[in-house]
């Protein structure tokens, strides 16, 4: 660790991992509710488990991004963080807001929570992924703005690099697009259109810039390849991301009441969306092939390569699978969407956060890399989580194909719940894969507590 203020990243990473564990536990609860409908009912109804599962995902990824920014920006800018104290205060505010929100979801019925938190003053609740009560949403805006102020001031007073600029662009975009969470038109078509401004333009727009910057930073550190080479790749990747991703929003506008031309725009541009992920994968492998040093942190290298591959598969391949309008006519809102969502989020954003944590945590704990023993366990966790996520995706895809056929293609279409019963076998297999994923996550946690002599660098 080159700058003492980088240490503020550590609590962010710890909180991120803690919330990640919570997300997976609620995922398993919900997965079981798919096949045992009364499981934990009425204590944790399905809609609440789902809300906690998805909200925890978003919050822990945001914790990860903020921790990454606090670690990365001082090193890129070659200066201490503008205000480490502000970063610590924001950490506790954000954590308290997140925990109180989850307690609110679990403790009172959602409608009561809406009444208690002033939703009638400005109606923002009740929309998927944006279920947070108004005070939480306002808290997110305050935390985001103060965080951006801190990071931007750090960049402004120090060296300006492509990586920190791309990261800032992504983070500012993240904050700006979140403002659409406060716009809730009565017209349901407009409501959905602007809802996607947050959801799509986050994950298929500005978050990809954050991902690219984080991956580029780690690759510079672990491969020793010239910054100029990596920055050129980064320019290409973010250009491809913005060219394809912005108008790619159109693939969410099929069949929701928007004009038909969105079927062409959405199909064409989102068919191109795998290209930046393709470039990201070739970039990661190419940098590792051209490495000038053998960095002792093998686990971080594995996570970095895994991010490229899994994001290409999850976001690229599984996204393309149902993005063309004529195909989406059948697949819309089926388990195919769930399959894509799981692998894309894991491959792109979970893995890039774990890449960063894997690289930075040993340095934050005063060593270049963890011991060989610790890294072996971490690599086991990589394979357990990644392979089980591949199976989760495949089982959901299998369930989706059958669901589409039985519900939408067969000459005698069956009702939704009848079909759900018929694909239960795949939900069971998905659940068992989820258990293995949890085992992988626990192995990941355990790797932090394995001692031994830190691994050392050797010449290439």
């Amino acid at each position: 660790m080159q700058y003492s203020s980088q240490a503020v990243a550590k609590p962010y990473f710890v909180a991120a991992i803690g919330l990640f564990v919570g997300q997976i536990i609620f995922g398993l609860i919900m997965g079981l509710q798919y096949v045992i409908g009364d499981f934990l009912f009425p204590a944790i109804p399905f809609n609440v488990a789902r809300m906690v599962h998805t909200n925890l995902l978003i919050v822990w990824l945001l914790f990860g991004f903020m921790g990454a920014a606090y670690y990365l920006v001082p090193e890129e800018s070659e200066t201490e963080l503008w205000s480490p104290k502000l970063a610590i205060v924001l950490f506790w505010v954000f954590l308290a807001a997140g925990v109180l929100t989850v307690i609110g979801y679990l403790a009172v019925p959602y409608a009561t929570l809406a009444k208690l938190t002033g939703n009638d003053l400005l109606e923002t609740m009740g929309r998927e992924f944006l279920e947070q009560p108004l005070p939480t949403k306002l808290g997110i805006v305050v935390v985001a703005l103060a965080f951006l102020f801190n990071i931007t001031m750090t960049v402004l007073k120090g060296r300006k690099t492509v990586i920190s600029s791309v990261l800032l662009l992504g983070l500012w975009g993240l904050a700006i697009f979140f403002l659409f969470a406060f716009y809730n038109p009565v017209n349901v078509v407009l409501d959905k259109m602007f809802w996607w401004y947050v959801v799509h333009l986050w994950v298929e727009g500005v978050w990809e810039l954050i991902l690219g910057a984080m991956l580029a930073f780690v690759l510079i550190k672990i491969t020793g390849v010239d910054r100029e080479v990596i920055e050129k790749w980064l320019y290409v990747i973010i250009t491809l991301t913005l060219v394809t991703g912005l108008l790619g929003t159109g693939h969410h506008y099929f069949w929701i009441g928007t004009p038909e031309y969105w079927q062409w725009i959405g199909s064409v541009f989102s068919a191109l969306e795998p290209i930046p992920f393709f470039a990201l994968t070739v970039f990661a492998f190419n940098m590792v092939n051209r490495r000038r040093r053998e960095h002792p942190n093998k686990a971080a290298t594995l996570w970095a390569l895994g991010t490229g591959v899994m994001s290409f598969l999850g976001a690229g391949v599984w996204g393309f699978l149902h993005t063309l309008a004529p195909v989406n006519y059948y697949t819309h809102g089926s388990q195919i969407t769930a399959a894509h969502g799981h692998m894309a989020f894991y491959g792109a954003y979970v893995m890039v956060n774990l890449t960063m944590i894997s690289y930075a945590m040993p340095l934050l704990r005063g060593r270049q890399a963890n011991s060989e023993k610790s890294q072996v366990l971490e690599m086991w966790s990589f394979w357990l989580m990644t392979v089980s996520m591949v199976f989760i995706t495949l089982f959901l895809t299998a369930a989706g194909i059958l669901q589409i056929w039985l519900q939408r293609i067969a000459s005698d279409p069956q009702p939704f719940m009848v079909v759900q019963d018929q694909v239960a076998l795949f939900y069971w297999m998905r659940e068992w894969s989820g258990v293995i994923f949890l085992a992988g996550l626990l192995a990941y946690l355990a790797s932090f507590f394995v001692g031994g002599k830190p691994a050392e660098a050797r010449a290439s």
Partner: protein
Amino acid sequence: MSSFSPHDDPGRRFAVIAESLYLANLLIAPGFAFLGLLWLWRRADVRALPLARQHLRQTLIASLWAGAMLGGLSAGILLIGGFTSMWSWFAVILYFIVFHSTLVLCGMVGLSRAISGQPYRFPLIGPGDPA
């Protein structure tokens, strides 16, 4: 492998083209990109470059396998199971996604190796280097 030099620029250029054509054959121009590979293979000046020859040989044979396994097996499943059977489509779609993605990923690794001026052998379907 010592005959491959990362500074073999003409060889590297053709190796990158070969891997790109392999990927294009899988992704955007099936058939046409394969014809491009064949045309490249027929050029003696290209085959004379060790790195280009290695990548060309790998991508040509991997493309033949890909065609046979993606086209042939998928068609076989549909012909045997029937075009109106749910289970035929279930098997074909899952098989195609998994196998096609695997072939594309191998091509991406091959492309990154070619860019770095290094040889690459496709797992399982790639031919061994001639003695």
